[in-house]
């Protein structure tokens, strides 16, 4: 090829493509930063316009200028934590079965099925929850209504399962075969090997599965909005689990569409979004630091 300015064309072209790919890669950081700046710009006025004792109160009546966001934050946390209490043992159990116990033909069927699970749209799940799950919960638990925090947590657990299973399975997969061989050679049973050797060796990856599942659950909107009843009441006892609740995501989704641009209510909704963003961001950060620790320990891969 003809050299231009002493540099062959091919080399220039390569440099161009390389730069392009790199810019695209780094643009993800740019997008996150810009979204954060946008959220700050729209959300921070809420903390200035509304007195903090109104904002951090238990009464959420935005049309009457009562913007108590505590029931919403508590609602999101309750639903997410309960969902994780259900999904984490199930997910890790499934991952252990798929990776360690299931015969290879079962594994080949199960793995794609789990991935299909992740592809079910959340509206479909929400509709299923509203029509099928809610009456079952109302009748079996004797709750006044089936649209409860628990119903939401069940659906969220179901939605977080595929994430937890795949990540936990990858973590188990990364444990070298020699660990299992050593365990079995020491006379341990298969169960003892799994429970005392393989799972502890993969624990940072399993923890990351929990964090990612949690991030999936806390940000979910549609299904939660359809089945939790959306009553902004402060959960005060264990009984509140079987009563309606309102999450941050459902509030934003339900109210943003009709709110006047630039009004106090508008800024408060962005403020709630900002709180949600900070929560999910810290969860993801925790997951990343867990992963980083695994790498720097030089450990298992």
């Amino acid at each position, binding site marked *: 090829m003809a050299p231009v300015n002493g540099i062959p064309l091919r080399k220039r072209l390569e440099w161009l493509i390389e730069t392009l790919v790199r810019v695209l890669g*780094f643009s993800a950081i*740019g997008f996150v930063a810009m979204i954060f700046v946008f959220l700050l710009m729209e959300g921070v006025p809420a903390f200035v316009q509304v007195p903090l004792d109104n904002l951090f109160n238990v009464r959420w*009546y935005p*049309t*009457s200028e009562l913007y108590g966001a505590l029931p919403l934050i508590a609602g999101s946390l309750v639903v997410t934590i309960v969902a994780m209490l259900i999904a984490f043992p199930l997910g890790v159990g499934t991952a252990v079965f798929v990776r360690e116990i299931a015969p290879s033909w079962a594994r080949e069927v199960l793995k794609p099925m789990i991935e299909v699970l992740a592809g079910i749209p959340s509206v479909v799940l929400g509709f299923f929850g509203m029509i099928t799950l809610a009456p079952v919960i109302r009748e079996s638990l004797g709750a006044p209504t089936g649209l409860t925090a628990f119903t939401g947590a069940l659906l969220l657990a179901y939605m977080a399962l595929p994430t937890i299973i795949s990540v936990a399975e990858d973590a188990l997969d990364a444990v070298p075969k020699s660990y299992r061989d050593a365990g079995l050679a020491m006379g341990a049973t298969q169960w003892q090997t799994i429970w005392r050797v393989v799972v502890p060796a993969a624990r940072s990856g399993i923890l990351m599965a929990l964090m990612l599942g949690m991030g999936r659950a806390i940000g979910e909107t549609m299904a939660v909005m359809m089945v939790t009843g959306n009553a902004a009441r402060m959960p005060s006892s264990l009984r509140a689990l079987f009563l*309606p609740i309102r999450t941050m995501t459902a509030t934003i989704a339900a109210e943003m569409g*009709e709110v006047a641009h630039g009004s106090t209510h508008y800024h408060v909704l962005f403020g709630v979004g900002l709180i949600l963003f900070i929560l999910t961001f810290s969860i993801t950060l925790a997951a990343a630091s867990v992963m980083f620790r695994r790498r720097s320990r030089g450990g298992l891969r």
Partner: protein
Amino acid sequence: MIPPRAALLCACCAFLIVFAATLAGCRPSGDASTGSDGAIQTIQNKGSDTLVNLALAWVEAYALVHPEVRISVTGGGSGTGIAAMINGTVDIANASRAMKTVELDAARANGIEPIEFTVALDAIAIVVHPDNPIDHLSLQQISDIYTGKITNWSELGSYDRPIVLLSRESNSGTYVYFLENVIRQGWEDDDSLFSPDTLLMPSSEGISAEVRQNRNAIGYDGLGYVTPDQKVVAVGIEPGGPFVLPSIETVNDGSYPISRPLYMYTAGEPSGAIRTFLDWILSDGQQMVRDLGFVPLD
């Protein structure tokens, strides 16, 4: 040759700047063009958020029979629409309430005599599960139920079950109307609110699904949205009755208490395209009123 690192940095910066500029440029530009070119006439319509969907449906249907008229519809609330009509920036104002004396005075001071057209009626039905023995409630009882003073059906002479309150989301016009005219019963100094236990449903379908399934539930919604598998409760103004079931007749003769007329106002007696449009609304346009959850005029 340019050092790759510096070039990369430049490219990144350029990209971000361009992107930010695009974002900044994306703000919606305020005023739609009002210029009428040739034979095309334009009508500006603005006001009540309750009426906005109905008005849009009317405009879409009207465009099929009168393609030469262009009508733009915006919400913003009854007050906004009326103020714009008084200032002469819109031709028709939508309102879910009658004009106040202050607004009439302001209009007259501006040399405008507003003309009122009742274009549809809005009635709210109170619904319960078909098995619920309750068949009538007074406004005061409904208010006590929704503020959380009455929490069990047995207090109303029905079966012994907790009451589950269903409402539309707070962004719906029905929510505000119900709050002001049923819970507060029209008293402006009353600051009662929905009980915090009220379930806010994002859609009419949410309310009807729960009322169908749940014997504990009570809900309210626009009369046009009520399906036959829900039980509609008769409502009375006084505790002793008479109790009236909502229907096209009882809403039109004003005997059903939770209903209101919806208005359109024009600045002065309308003529030309505006007149034709309003006449169409009051005749052919009434056919689609029911589909949007409102009550057509008799």
